[in-house]
């Protein structure tokens, strides 16, 4: 099957700055693909390369098997939902949504109908006569989505579309986006710096750092088996164990990651590894408690369910975890 988007050794350098550096990736058709990374990691530049706002300085890009470099954005059947929505302030909501059809020469009545359907799909029926300035952030976000989807794009690019929304709305939109993507079957490429968002929504995640992909895999892969220290740190929080410490646990002399929720304070069970330490601090997070334990000079974070008893600060505790949860990483 041809990939929806294919990057072969793609680079985008701005002078000495390597915004994107030798990236290879293949987004499968119908996939929800997330590009995750901190700001300046190259994820947004990758999205702009797909949209055609940037041209690569090296490498090859294909969209559904067709060469994309040198093709202007308006000839790509790819649409973007912009971070700050980029709605046209001088047009009504309906004209905003119908814009793509208007410039393609679709008849007035037909594009009106399509725009109204698209607005209904994003749960904003009857909002057509308003102006972007009269809508809330969440509503504008939906309009931006409708404006892109009305064109039936081959790939929908989303540039941190939920970044400006508050937490509740964000969670709601995450679910809606996921449902929408499933029902439409359109390939979504989603840029975010929020690892929770990427984990919960994406079929696959590419973790970016300094213009390169650090790891590409399913959310479970990336979370449970981070390849590098950066991925372990950035995706969720993790205890990074130094090689010296790891050898004491009976494993090879390698950097390892141990997720805080994999550690239990309830005493050693059969087949588990155990460590003893002293509780340094604890904080209440609502659904869980976060406890910091000092194990002979190494600080380990432990997430324990809110229901289980919380040890006093300064008390001695036994940490135990399954050997499989100790994930060995490549160097760096």
């Amino acid at each position, binding site marked *: 099957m041809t990939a929806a988007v294919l990057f072969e050794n793609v680079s985008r350098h701005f002078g000495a700055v390597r915004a994107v550096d030798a990236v290879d990736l293949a987004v499968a058709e119908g996939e929800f693909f997330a590009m995750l990374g901190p700001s300046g990691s190259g994820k947004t530049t990758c999205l702009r390369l797909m949209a055609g706002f940037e041209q690569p300085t090296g490498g090859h890009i294909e969209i559904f098997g067709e060469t994309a470099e040198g093709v202007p954005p308006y000839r790509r059947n790819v649409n973007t939902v912009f971070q*700050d929505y980029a709605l046209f302030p001088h047009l009504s909501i309906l004209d905003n949504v119908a*814009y793509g059809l208007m410039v393609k020469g679709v008849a007035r009545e037909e594009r009106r109908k399509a725009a109204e359907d698209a607005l209904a799909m994003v749960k904003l029926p009857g909002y057509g006569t308003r102006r972007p300035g009269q809508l809330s952030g969440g509503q504008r976000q939906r309009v931006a989505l409708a404006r892109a989807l009305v064109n039936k794009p081959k790939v929908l690019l989303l540039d941190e579309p939920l970044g400006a929304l508050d937490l509740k709305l964000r969670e709601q939109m995450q679910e809606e986006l996921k449902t929408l993507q499933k029902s439409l079957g359109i390939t979504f490429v989603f840029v975010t710096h929020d690892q929770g968002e990427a984990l919960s929504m994406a079929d696959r995640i590419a973790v970016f750092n300094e213009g390169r992909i650090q790891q590409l895999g399913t959310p479970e892969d990336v979370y449970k088996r981070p390849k590098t220290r950066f991925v372990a740190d950035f995706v969720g929080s993790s205890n990074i164990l130094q090689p010296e410490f790891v050898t004491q646990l009976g494993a090879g002399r390698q950097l390892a990651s141990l997720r805080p929720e994999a550690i239990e304070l309830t005493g050693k069970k059969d087949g588990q590894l155990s460590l003893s330490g002293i509780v340094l601090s604890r904080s209440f997070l609502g659904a869980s408690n976060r406890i910091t334990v000092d194990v002979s000079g190494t600080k380990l974070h432990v997430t324990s369910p809110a229901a289980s008893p919380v040890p006093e600060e300064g008390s001695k505790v036994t940490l135990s975890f399954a050997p499989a949860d100790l994930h060995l990483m490549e160097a760096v």
Partner: protein
Amino acid sequence: MSAITGEQAISTQRSGLAGRISDFFWKHPHVFLAVMLAPPLLWLGIIYLGSLLALLLQSFFSIDDYSGLVNYEFTLATYGQLLNETNLDIIIRTVCMAAIVTLFSALIAFPIAYYAARYARGKWKALFYLGVMLPLWSSYLVKIYAWKLILAKEGILTWLLTKLNLLWLLDAWLSLPVIGGNSLSVSYTGTFIVFVYVWMPFMILPIQASLERVPVNLIEASSDLGSTPQQTFRHVLFPLALPGIVAGSIFTFSLTLGDYIIPQIIGSSRLFIGQAVYAQQGTAGNIPLAAAFTVVPIVIMGLYLWAARRMGAFDAL
């Protein structure tokens, strides 16, 4: 007690008049606003609007043809005079010139403003402002006389075209009816060129300001949705720049309607509104007719703004 934080949580009122005034204004922000706005409002209300009203009033008086004195009785006779053939001719000539000057100013200004708003950064932007503003720093009369020399028959333009063997082009242009003449400096074409030159900064700056406010991602969004660059210009860039273009055109249009020096120095000897006003209130001593003439630009600008509003020029504001 640390040295950084004060002794008390709330410091005592500052002594002296300044301190008391500050506190008073802080407690009464509306009074402060009134104090700030009173002088300009008085100026606008009394000096400016007052004199404008006085002027309007004058236009409803008439002049006694025999004694040359103003007859202070309300009459529409002066307006009747305004619409006689000679005077109507002056009005039409001036309005056509103002319209063409405005149109060409906008056409020339837009690309310059677009470059400045979209691409110029750092020192190039400074250079742009300098280049646009520099002509405003030198005297208006000096510039016009300089143009007279450039456009004259013995001037540099004729010389240059002769050297390039293109003089026939100029001659062909000058042989055209209405816009032609003996030389550029005594033709409407010359008047037009100088008007466009002199008012150009007033067109460039508002357009540049409006283009600067168009976010880049709107252009990208338009392109992303399938717009070719021409379509993006037509449906996004132009509508959003329209308030700036209208603002600029108000300048070029009204300045051309009112100017009496440029057509006097460069152009045929036929009168423009500004010259007519100058002649009527000066040598002719016909203040009512001069006043009636000045009402013309006011009415035209009013109609222009109304039409621009109807066309949605200010929707993006």
